[in-house]
């Protein structure tokens, strides 16, 4: 293979990206060496098994991916902002919308949710860690290896270009002969294994490690949502594993699963992909519902209205999520009966979702509402998500769907669902739980400025797309002529996209500013919260709870505050902790190289890399490290120091 086949050449934009990647990497290496931070990085982060730090790393990676996916989005909007635009060519445009979709769903939304899960779930249920701390680290490093593998594709070898749903035969070896879709199958496969492990880990954590007295129906709503999400993960992700395996076999070993000859069936891919892909939507949106429930109840200063119906509606949604997948391809010739069935099940999802909307509204009703930044995002979510939901029901009608299938209407719909339903939620959760991890709040004023930028720009960007879709502009169309009349609305959408960019930059600037200037929080409970995570000092100590509290009712901490009783009057004892381990990180690196070599079908390198993976796993199995104890006196001292003089 020649160098110009290995690296992507001929694109000034990509040359720029290559230079900036090299410069940023150099800057990081030089910076770490100059400030002598290598040891700190290794000891405190790369080898950590602390769920809070793993959560922080997830969120950091997700934020970086948000900007990577955002750059893709801006380039798409720029390309379509005017008729006959020559900014990108067709191939480059295909690559960009493909990577935008994959990155935003799999490498931004999911890790962001997983980050918040990791940080908060053990704290909400009164646990000292997740059930399997080292497995948790492995999950993170597998996600990270997959994400990095996916990201290098655009400079080495070329990005996938068959859309995030990678439909065959387009994604097959004949029509997509370069390595882009190999990256797709392998990087998602690697991070998907990590996701599955996270699902197992959190089910065990939530079911087995709750504080005494916390029955299932006394759990905070976010914990409930994560439990249900984890169950969906366990049943949905293996389907993706197989789909990606078959894709790899078809592309690299000449099998006939999705081909157009020798009995292959391209629709099999569409079915397998969406049997995973539809539940995936709920994997990212259910935890978001949990986050909003927490925030709305905290800042309406009321307990959540309709707790039981909230739980039931999530259970119903999780069941329905598995029987609606064919609504993604009504127009691909599956007959009226099949379309009818999937049309009805799809519309049925609106019922439990509507229940949740009304529960939030009734929680707000007669509440003493505080308009904090996280609350603003939650309040904005309700009407915007409802627009997304209503247009979803429009799309669910199979016969009507023939009109707007694969148009910008669909693009507008799912951005109207996923951005308020996931992105607003993770940003709200980020602002809400930030003080628990770092010990200070993000600046409210700056947070609200960013909020208004994001909310307004979001609508300016995506609302025009509904009309463009109804006028007949198909999705994935990389250019159009002036006579179509699509120009002005696309330009408006571009303006919104610039506003969104400014909003997200303000958000990051707020993190920087608050780190330097925002006053530190000594109470551990800056929002006057309801659930257990607010009962411990901020930043949360490594062992979380010096004394494990006993739970008698929902929102126990809230009532304990009101009744002026302490949840922690038991004696402090020594605490058992898991030791750090560098192996998960090394395993991630091995998986990265295994994936990379398989992408290029370099078997003589891939086989040793595969053996390395097995050997690292074996050494982990031989490990007999049972962790260590923090002595009771040390715990007592830490508690005193963290709580300051306020207790």
């Amino acid at each position: 293979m020649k160098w110009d086949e290995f690296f992507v050449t001929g694109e000034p934009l990509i040359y720029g990206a290559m230079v900036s990647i090299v410069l940023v990497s150099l800057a990081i290496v030089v910076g770490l060496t100059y400030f002598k931070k290598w040891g700190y990085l290794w000891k405190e982060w790369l080898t950590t098994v602390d769920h809070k730090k793993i959560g922080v790393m997830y969120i950091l990676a997700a934020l970086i991916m948000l900007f990577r996916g955002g750059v893709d989005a801006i380039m798409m909007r720029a390309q379509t902002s005017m008729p006959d635009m020559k900014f990108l060519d067709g191939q480059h445009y295909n690559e960009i919308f493909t990577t935008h979709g994959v990155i935003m769903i799999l490498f931004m939304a999911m890790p962001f949710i997983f980050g918040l899960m990791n940080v908060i779930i053990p704290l909400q249920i009164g646990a000292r860690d997740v059930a399997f701390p080292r497995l948790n680290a492995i999950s993170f490093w597998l996600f990270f290896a997959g994400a990095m593998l996916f990201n290098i594709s655009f400079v080495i070898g070329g990005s996938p270009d068959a859309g995030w749903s990678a439909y065959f035969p387009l994604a097959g070896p004949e029509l997509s002969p370069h390595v882009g879709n190999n990256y797709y199958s392998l990087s998602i496969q690697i991070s998907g294994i990590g996701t599955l492990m996270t699902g197992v880990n959190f089910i065990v954590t939530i079911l087995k490690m709750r504080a005494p007295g916390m029955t299932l129906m006394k759990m905070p709503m976010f914990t409930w949502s994560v439990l249900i999400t984890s169950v969906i993960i366990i049943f949905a992700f293996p389907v993706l594993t197989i789909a990606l395996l078959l894709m790899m076999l078809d592309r690299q070993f000449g099998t006939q699963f999705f081909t157009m000859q020798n009995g292959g069936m391209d629709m099999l891919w569409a079915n397998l992909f969406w049997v995973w892909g539809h539940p995936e939507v709920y994997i990212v949106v259910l935890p978001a519902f949990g986050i909003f429930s927490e925030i709305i109840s905290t800042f309406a200063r009321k307990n959540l209205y309709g707790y039981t119906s909230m739980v039931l509606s999530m259970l119903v949604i999780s069941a329905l999520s598995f029987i609606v997948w064919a609504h993604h391809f009504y127009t691909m010739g599956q007959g009226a009966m099949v379309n009818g069935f999937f049309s009805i099940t799809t519309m049925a999802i609106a019922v439990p979702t509507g229940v949740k909307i009304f529960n939030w509204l009734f929680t707000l009703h007669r509440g003493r509402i505080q308009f904090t930044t996280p609350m603003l995002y939650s309040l904005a979510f309700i009407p915007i998500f409802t627009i997304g939901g209503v247009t979803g029901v429009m799309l669910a009608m199979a016969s009507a769907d023939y009109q707007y299938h694969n148009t910008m209407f669909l693009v507008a719909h799912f951005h109207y669902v996923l951005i308020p339903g996931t992105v607003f939620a993770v940003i709200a959760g980020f602002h809400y739980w930030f003080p628990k991890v770092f010990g200070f709040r993000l600046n409210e004023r700056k947070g609200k400025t960013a909020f208004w930028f994001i909310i307004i720009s979001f609508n300016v960007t995506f609302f025009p797309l509904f009309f463009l879709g109804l006028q007949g502009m198909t999705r994935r169309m990389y250019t159009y002529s002036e006579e179509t009349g699509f120009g002005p609305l696309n330009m408006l959408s571009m303006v919104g996209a610039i506003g969104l960019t400014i909003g997200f930059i303000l958000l990051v600037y707020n993190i920087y500013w608050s780190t330097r200037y925002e006053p530190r929080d000594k109470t551990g409970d800056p929002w006057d919260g309801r659930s257990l995570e607010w009962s411990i000092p901020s930043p949360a100590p490594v062992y979380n709870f010096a004394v494990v509290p006993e739970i008698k009712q929902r929102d126990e901490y809230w009532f304990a505050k009101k009744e002026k009783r302490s949840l922690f009057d038991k004696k402090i004892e020594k605490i058992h902790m898991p030791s750090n381990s560098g192996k998960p990180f090394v395993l991630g690196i091995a998986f990265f190289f295994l994936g990379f070599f398989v992408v290029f079908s370099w078997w003589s390198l891939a086989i040793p890399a595969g053996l390395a993976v097995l050997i690292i796993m074996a050494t982990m199995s031989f490990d007999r490290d049972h962790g260590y104890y923090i002595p009771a006196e040390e715990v007592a001292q830490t508690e005193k120091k963290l709580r300051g003089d306020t207790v």
Partner: protein
Amino acid sequence: MKIDATQPLEYGTEENRNKIFGFWLFLGAEIALFATLFTVYFVLVDRYASGPNGAEIFEIGPVLAETFILLTSSFTIGLAVHAMRLGLKKQMMMFMIITLALGAVFLGIEIFEFFTYVHEGATITTSAFLSSLFTLLGTHGAHVTFGLLWGIAILVQLRKHGLDHSTANKSFIFSLYWHFLDVVWIFIFSFVYLKGLM
């Protein structure tokens, strides 16, 4: 580490109980994984294009042998766990070695089968039916191979550290895995081979 003496060794600590529960959940995911593979197989089973179909290449002899060998190994891993409960490390290791040996023989026959199919012109690239057949069998075979390596690692640990909470827990989880492979094979035997031969 609190040890609960009323429980069997492998359930003794909270960590152990969590691991066993977690592994059951993982097996749930494995069921979803194999269910997907079976679905793909059933969808593609009649799409053999110009290649041979199941009835033309399947032979009952080797498949019956594979079935009996794997079923026996499921029995012997049960005996190993029984010996473990009685605290008989030596017998336990012996039964585990027998189990792994049977697994290796099973794998040998399967590889021999694959060679026969390929020799008869039935390769993984010939038709959609054969692609799905080889992938289903191959995934099961890869699981058995991984099980062999895993079992050997556990045997080494049993030798080195004796029978304690950690090794007992690992051995028990391994036995769950091995039984699971057997269950999957029952489905392959019934719905791939027997149905294919009809």
